[in-house]
């Protein structure tokens, strides 16, 4: 290895505290005061630049967040403390905690909360389990795996509206495909719309159909990061595919599973389009007996059908608080999980 020409050990390591240009500067004549000032100014500007430019770069996000995220959030909170009607949204009358205390005694609110919970459970649990299974299958070496991966994602790409309208037809009482196929195997048709459980299962089916593929792909991505030698050594120990899945795949996927649980829970709490459109009459009541009215739907009904913006805001904030609670519970759970490992 030869040193480049002109390279001498003396200049290789400049004295501490000086820049790389120090040797040449040392030989140059002392700068005149004007030049010195210019340099000072430049370095001050440089420091300011380094300090504040990043803020300028991220500012657009925060400006938009403030305008379209934070402001509506706070304004909704403010509105929830007032009596406001959509017929005259600028006229607000102070109501204190009335909208909230009213919710406490509102049987429709509790029913909606209960429905949201049950629909959330019967849509999220099977959905994630199926997604895990599908991901496991897709993780095998198989022909045209790309095709299958894209195929399972297509439901996710369809719009809620289109999917729900089709499902509402499938679950029709007299002319629906589901009852027709039940009839083929000699079973009576089910009145999907009108029963509490049947309607909730029907709504959950739409959710499951739309989101299973999405979650499967997330699991698949995580599975591919699981080191292959784990499987190999498991196989050497004589573990079956099922055992491998239970004892290698699932434990390695724990953080991913937790993530999907959280995301799905948030989605379930905000469930709106499916129950709205599942009602073929297009009303926001969530069925004749409000049997599948979710919190989102109830908020919509209060705000945009009954025109009580204040109460709708209170429902929105209550939903927000419920989500915060879920997030807190999840954080606790995640910490436990990490400690136990």
């Amino acid at each position, binding site marked *: 290895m030869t040193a480049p020409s002109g390279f001498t050990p003396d200049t290789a390591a400049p004295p501490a505290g000086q820049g790389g240009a120090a040797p040449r500067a040392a030989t140059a004549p002392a700068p005149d005061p004007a030049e010195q000032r210019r340099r000072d100014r*430049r370095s001050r*500007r*440089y420091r300011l*630049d380094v300090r504040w*430019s990043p803020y*300028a*770069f991220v*500012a*657009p996000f925060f*400006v*938009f967040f403030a*305008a379209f995220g934070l402001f509506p959030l706070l304004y909704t909170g403010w509105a929830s403390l007032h*009596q406001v*009607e*959509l*017929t*005259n*949204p*600028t006229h607000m009358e102070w109501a204190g905690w009335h909208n909230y205390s009213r919710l406490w005694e*509102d*049987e*429709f609110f509790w029913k909606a909360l209960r429905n949201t919970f049950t629909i959330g459970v019967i849509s999220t649990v099977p959905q994630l389990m199926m997604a895990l299974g599908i991901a496991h299958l897709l993780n095998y070496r198989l022909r045209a795996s790309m095709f299958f991966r894209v195929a399972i994602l297509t439901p996710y790409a369809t719009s809620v509206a289109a999917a729900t309208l089709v499902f*509402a*037809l499938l679950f*029709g*009482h*007299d*002319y629906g495909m589901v009852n027709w196929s039940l009839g083929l195997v000699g079973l009576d048709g089910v*009145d999907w*719309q*009108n029963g509490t459980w049947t309607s909730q299962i029907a709504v959950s089916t739409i959710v499951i159909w739309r989101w299973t593929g999405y979650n499967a792909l997330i699991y698949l991505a995580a599975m591919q990061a699981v080191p292959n030698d784990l499987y190999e050594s498991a196989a050497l120990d004589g573990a079956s595919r099922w055992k491998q899945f239970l004892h290698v795949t699932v434990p390695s996927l724990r953080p991913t599973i937790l993530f999907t649980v959280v995301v799905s829970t948030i989605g379930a709490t905000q469930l709106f389009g499916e129950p709205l459109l599942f009602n*073929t*009459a*297009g*009303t*926001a*009541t969530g069925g*004749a*007996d*409000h049997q599948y009215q979710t919190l989102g739907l109830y908020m919509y009904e209060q*705000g*945009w*059908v*009954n*025109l*009580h913006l204040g109460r709708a805001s209170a429902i929105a904030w209550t939903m927000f608080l419920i989500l915060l609670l879920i997030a807190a519970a999840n954080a606790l759970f995640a910490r436990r999980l990490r400690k136990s490992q």
Partner: protein
Amino acid sequence: MRRNTGSHRSRAVVLAAVAALGAGLLSGCADDGDDGSAGSSGGGDSKGKTVVTVGTYGVMGFKQAGLYDEYTKLHPDIKIEENVIDPASNYYPQLLTHLGSGSGLADIQAVEVGNINEVTTTQADKFVDLSKADGVKKENFLDWKWAQATAKDGKTIGLGTDVGPMAICYRKDLFQQAGLPADRDAVSELWAGDWQKYLDAGKDYAKKAPGGAAFLDSAGGLFNAAVSGSSEVYYDKSGKPIYKDGPAVKKAWKLATDASASKLSAKLQEFTKPWQQALANGKFATVSCPAWMLGQIKEYAGDKYKGKWDVAAAPQPANWGGSFLSVPQAAKNKDEAVKLATWLTAPEQQAKLFEKQASFPSAQAAYSLPQVADAKLPYFNNAPIGKIFSQAAKDSPTQILGPKDAVIKQNFTDVGLLQVEQQGKSADEGWKAAIKTNDNALDQ
């Protein structure tokens, strides 16, 4: 050093770009409110024509009946754009938000009869007084239609388009098979004067109901039809809600739940897919038939049942539904909009609309015009619908409207009666559920 200044410059460029982008986005958002009037920047298009926008819900038929084309031929400097919001349930909240912010409004906004009272009582100052417009004649319109859109101070904010005078549409062939009279005059006679007689006829029909077809489509439809014949329905004269003990509501409720209990109804919910399918498959023999229902029957029952349907008078004259055209103060082309709204609701145009779209005129002056007076529909066995519906419209009582009519009506049919019919609950339970839902909706 040079590198620094260089990056300074590029950073400045980036910052400027970001700022410009941000400003662009922000101004884009600020413009958003005007999007409702698609493509009408400042009310003029490239050819220098004035664009008048019309906001409607569902099919109001102006375009389909060729009225826009006719108007633009008469006024070559005008272009008309219609923004349809479907389903109709999304239309009203949007109209209210746009009124609240004063932007995004079309030059002409349609208002449904269920909402007209709320708009008239709470938003009158945001609309143009159409009673003073050139060419508007109060006496052209049905008195009660005119009154519905007139505020206490005499300001009229909406011009009536169609109304929904009531008849009963029935399957002539099924009536014959069931041994009931099939001729439309005899059928009208059968239940003249009382909805109870209509149910009695239904009980006779049910004894020999041919082909498994129910007598009527839904308890909800019957409820709406019966309730629409009274002047006091959900609100009394002083504006107090009386849906809990109003005689009209109670009577109609009893009728509707009786029909359901006697298994006269096909247990459908009107205008839903199953209801349309039942029409297509001939699953019921009668349906309460405001004029606009003819179009629905024709569309969904289809060619298969052409000539088998007929129209008889309803037991009592009643009106169900109808719309108004209004011009918001914030409209961009207020003057042109007023002219267009006046023209569209003039008797001649309403008659044309009836001829093409079966929207029944609220302009009584149109009833003597040949398009209405001599109207017969081949699909309905050449029933003289012009005569039947004009009679019903003239005899309909002036209905007292209230702000929440639409919501209350919906909760009675879609919560209360649906629980009784489709969920098998008792009439009492259904009533309580409807009242509770309504209390919740009206409670501020």
